[in-house]
C-alpha cells in the first residue's frame, strides 16, 4: 500500500479512529500490529510469513541471550539468520549471476540456476531494524522486550515499515510501551509533514522521473547537456522520492502519537561529504556507523585503519542499496571522496576561507556525479554516460523549464531556511500560502498514474 494512493487514505480513515479509541486500552498494540500486517500484506500476503519469521527469530534470540550463557552464540545465529534471509532474497540473483560469470570465465559449462524468488518490499529496512534490537540488547543498551506483540509492532509499525526511517529500539519501543499522547499539535504537525512529503513525491519526484527515465533508458541517444541534466534531475528525484516517503511516514506516525527520527536534513546544502552523510538517510548512516563502522574499530586505531573502516562501511552501504556492481561503485566513490576530503574538511583553510556556497556546490557536484552509477542500469551504461558527458557534443536537452523552476524554488527555499532569512519562511501567511499552493498544484496538475517509491526496491 502506497501512502499517496486513495487506498491508503481509506485504510488510514479506518485505522486512525480505532487507534484513537483503543490507545488507552490493551488492544492498542494488537490493533496496530493488525493494521501494520494488513498494510504490508497488501503487496503480497506471503510477505507476512517473512516479517513474522524475522520478528520471531530476533525475539527468541534475545530471550535465549537472557536465559542462557551463550549470548554471543545466539547473537551470531540471529545475525546470520537475518543476513542470510537478506542475502537469499536480495542478493541471490546477484551472487548467482556473478558465479555463473566466473564459471564461464573458468571455461566450465556448468550453470547455476537463478533463484527465481520474489523480492519482498522493504526487507532491508525491517531486517536492519530487528537486528539493531538484538545487537543493542547484546551490548546492554536496552532491556529485553517482554511482549511479543509489542516487539512485532516495533518491527512492523506500518508508517515506517517499507522504507524507514530505520528506528532504534531505544527510541520506538518506549513509545509503544507508553500511551500515545496525541495533542492537537501532533495532528497538525503530522498533516503538515504529510502534505510536504506528498508534494515531494507526486509533484516533484514523479515529474523529474519522467525525464530521468527517458534519458537513462537510452543514454546513447542523448547529448552531454541532456545527460548532465538527467543526472541533476535524478539527484533531486531520489531526494524528493525518499525524503517525501519519510516525511509522509513521520507525518502519519506523528498523527498516531509516535515520533520517528529525522531522516533527511536538506542534504544538498551539505558543506562536506561527512556533512552530507549526516543529512542524507540519517537512520541508515547512523545504523552503519553504530553496527559496522564502530565495531570495525571506527577511528580509534589510527588514520589508515580509519580510512579502511570508512571505505568498508561505505562499500557495504552501497551494496545494501542494491544487488549490482553499480551500487558497489557508488559506495566506493563516496568512500574515496570521504578519504580524500576528510582531512581537507577538517582544515582551517576549508572551514574558514572557502565560501560556504562554493563548498555546497562542490559537494552537490560530487554527489550528483556519483548518482550516475546509482541510477544507471548497468556499469556499461554508467561508463557510457560519463564518457558521453565528457565527449558528446551539444544538443538541446529539452529539459522542462517548469521542472527546473520547481527544483530551483525548493533549493532556494532550503538555502533561505538555513540562513538568517528563515524567519520569513516562518511567517504564518507564508506557511499557509505554501500549503495551499502545494495542495492546489497536487489536485490540479499532477498525473493520474501512481509511481512506487524508489527506495522500496532496497
Amino acid at each position: 500500500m502506497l501512502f499517496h494512493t486513495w487506498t491508503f487514505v481509506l485504510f488510514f480513515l479506518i485505522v486512525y479512529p480505532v487507534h484513537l479509541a483503543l490507545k488507552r486500552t490493551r488492544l492498542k498494540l494488537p490493533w496496530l500490529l493488525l493494521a501494520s500486517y494488513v498494510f504490508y500484506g497488501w503487496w503480497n500476503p506471503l510477505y507476512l510469513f517473512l516479517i513474522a519469521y524475522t520478528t520471531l527469530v530476533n525475539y527468541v534470540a534475545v530471550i535465549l541471550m537472557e536465559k542462557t550463557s551463550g549470548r554471543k552464540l545466539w547473537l551470531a545465529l540471529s545475525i546470520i539468520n537475518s543476513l542470510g534471509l537478506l542475502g537469499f532474497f536480495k542478493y541471490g540473483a546477484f551472487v548467482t549471476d556473478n558465479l555463473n560469470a566466473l564459471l564461464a570465465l573458468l571455461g566450465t559449462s556448468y550453470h547455476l540456476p537463478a533463484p527465481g524468488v520474489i523480492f519482498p518490499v522493504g526487507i532491508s529496512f525491517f531486517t536492519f531494524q530487528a537486528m539493531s534490537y538484538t545487537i543493542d540488547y547484546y551490548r546492554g543498551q536496552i532491556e529485553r522486550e517482554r511482549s511479543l506483540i509489542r516487539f512485532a509492532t516495533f518491527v512492523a509499525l506500518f508508517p515506517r515499515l517499507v522504507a524507514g526511517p530505520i528506528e532504534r529500539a531505544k527510541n520506538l519501543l518506549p513509545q509503544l510501551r507508553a500511551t500515545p499522547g496525541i495533542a492537537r499539535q501532533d495532528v497538525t504537525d503530522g498533516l503538515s509533514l504529510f502534505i510536504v512529503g506528498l508534494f515531494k513525491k507526486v509533484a516533484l519526484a514523479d515529474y523529474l522521473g519522467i525525464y530521468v527515465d527517458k534519458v537513462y533508458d537510452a543514454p546513447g541517444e542523448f547529448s552531454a547537456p541532456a545527460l548532465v541534466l538527467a543526472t541533476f534531475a535524478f539527484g533531486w528525484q531520489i531526494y524528493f522520492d525518499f525524503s517525501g516517503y519519510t516525511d509522509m511516514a513521520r507525518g502519519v506516525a506523528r498523527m498516531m502519537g509516535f515520533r520517528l527520527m529525522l531522516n533527511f536534513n536538506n542534504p544538498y546544502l551539505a558543506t562536506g561529504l561527512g556533512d552530507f552523510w549526516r543529512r542524507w538517510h540519517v537512520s541508515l548512516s547512523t545504523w552503519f556507523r553504530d553496527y559496522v563502522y564502530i565495531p570495525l574499530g571506527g577511528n580509534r586505531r589510527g588514520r589508515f585503519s580509519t580510512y579502511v573502516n570508512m571505505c568498508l562501511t561505505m562499500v557495504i552501504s552501497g551494496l545494501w542499496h542494491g544487488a549490482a556492481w553499480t551500487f558497489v561503485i557508488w559506495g566506493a566513490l563516496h568512500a574515496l571522496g570521504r578519504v580524500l576530503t576528510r582531512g581537507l574538511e577538517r582544515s582551517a583553510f576549508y572551514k574558514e576561507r572557502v565560501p560556504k556556497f562554493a563548498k555546497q556546490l562542490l559537494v552537490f557536484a560530487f554527489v550528483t556525479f556519483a548518482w550516475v552509477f546509482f541510477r544507471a542500469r548497468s556499469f556499461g551504461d554508467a561508463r557510457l554516460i560519463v564518457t558521453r558527458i565528457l565527449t558528446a557534443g551539444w544538443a538541446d536537452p529539452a529539459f522542462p523549464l517548469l521542472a527546473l523552476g520547481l527544483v530551483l524554488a525548493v533549493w532556494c527555499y532550503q538555502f533561505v531556511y538555513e540562513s538568517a532569512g528563515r524567519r520569513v519562511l516562518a511567517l504564518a501567511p507564508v506557511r499557509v500560502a505554501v500549503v495551499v499552493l502545494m495542495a492546489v498544484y497536487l489536485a490540479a496538475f499532477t498525473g493520474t498514474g501512481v509511481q512506487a517509491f524508489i527506495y522500496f526496491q532496497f
Partner: protein
Amino acid sequence: MQQTRPTQQESALTVPAIPYGSHEVRLSGRQWLAAAALILCVLVFAPVAWERIEEFEPGADYRMPYGLSSDYWLFDRYCRFAASRCDTLVLGDSVIWGQYVRPDQTLTHHLNDLAGRSRFANMGVDGLHPAALAGLIDYYGRAISGKNVLLHCNVLWMSSTRHDLQTDKEFHFNHPRLVPQFVPRIPCYRESYADRLGILVERTVPFFAWANHLRLVYFDRKSVPAWTLEHPYGNPAKGIGRGLPAPEGSARQEPFPWTDRGVARQSFPWVPLDASFQWRSFRRALAMLRGRGSRVFVLVGPFNEHMLEQESLQTYAARKAEIAAWLREQQVAHYVPPALPSQYCADASHPLDEGYAMLAAQLFECDSFIEFLDRASTQ
C-alpha cells in the same frame, strides 16, 4: 559517516526530542483551518469561475468534440446548457453522436428539421455503452433531471459477452471511469483499488473532473508534467488561454455503406437479456432518469439486420421483441424501427445521413413519439 558514538538516550524517555523537520511548513490548528478554507474555496470556485473564462456557446447541431468524449466535466456543462435551451435531450452512443456523418446529418439534426425548430440536443458520446451511460447520467447528468429524454438503446452492446463486459480476460473498454467500480463486479475490469477509489473521488468532487478537462483540452490529454516534457520551453498557462477546440464539421469516418467496406455478414453470439450486464445497466439508466422526473422515450435500434446471418437475425429479432415487451410492461414510450435499407447502413449499428433522415421521419410518424413531443412542448 559520523565519527563518534551517539550519546545513549534514556530508555524511559517516551517522547524523545526529535526535530520536527527540515522546513518551516508547520501549520497550527488555526492555520490549517485557514488553509483548508482557502483550498476548499479553490476546489469549489475554480471550476465555476472557469466557466466564465472559457467560452462555450454550442450552436445548432453541436455535438461533443470526438476527442473530448471522456471529458465528463464538459458533458456536464453541455447538459446544463442544453437543458436550458432544448426541451428534449437525445442520449446515446456514437449512433446518436453520428460517427459516419457531419453534425448537420445526425438524427438530432433531422429531428430538429422536422420539428421546425431546435427542440433536440445531441448528447451522444462515442463509445457510451449502457454501463457507462448509467454512470454518466448518475454523476455528470444531473441537469437532465426533469427534462424529456430520447434515450437510444443500442442492442449491439448485448451482442457478445465481450460487448457485455462479461469476459474474464482483461481488455480496455470505453469509459471505464463511468462504470461501477466495485459492485457489481465487472470481470474484465482490472483497475487497481487505488485507482478505483480515485475515480469515486473524481465523481464526487467536480474539481477533479475539471482538472481532467484541462488535461484533455489544453494539454494533449496529458498531465502538465508529461506535457512539459514534450513542450519543455512552453508556458502551460499560455496553452490554457486558447479556448475550447472548435466543433468538428466533418464525419469521423468515411460515409460509405457497409457493403462498400468489404464487411462480411456476421453471426453475433447474443447474450441472453436476463443475463446481460449491459441490459441491466440500461434499465438502471432508465430508472434513474425516470426517478429524477424525466419523461423518457426509448429508441430501440436501429440495427443493420442485413449484416446478420440468418440464425443471428432470429436471435436479434427475439431480443428486440423482449426489449419492446419489457418497455411496454414498464409503460415506457418507445419505438422499434424496422430495418433501414442496406445502403443506408455504415456498419452494424450506425446509419448514414439518409438512414438518419428516414429514422427521423419514422419517429415523426409514430403516435407515441408525437404524444411524447406534445407533452414535452407543454411543459
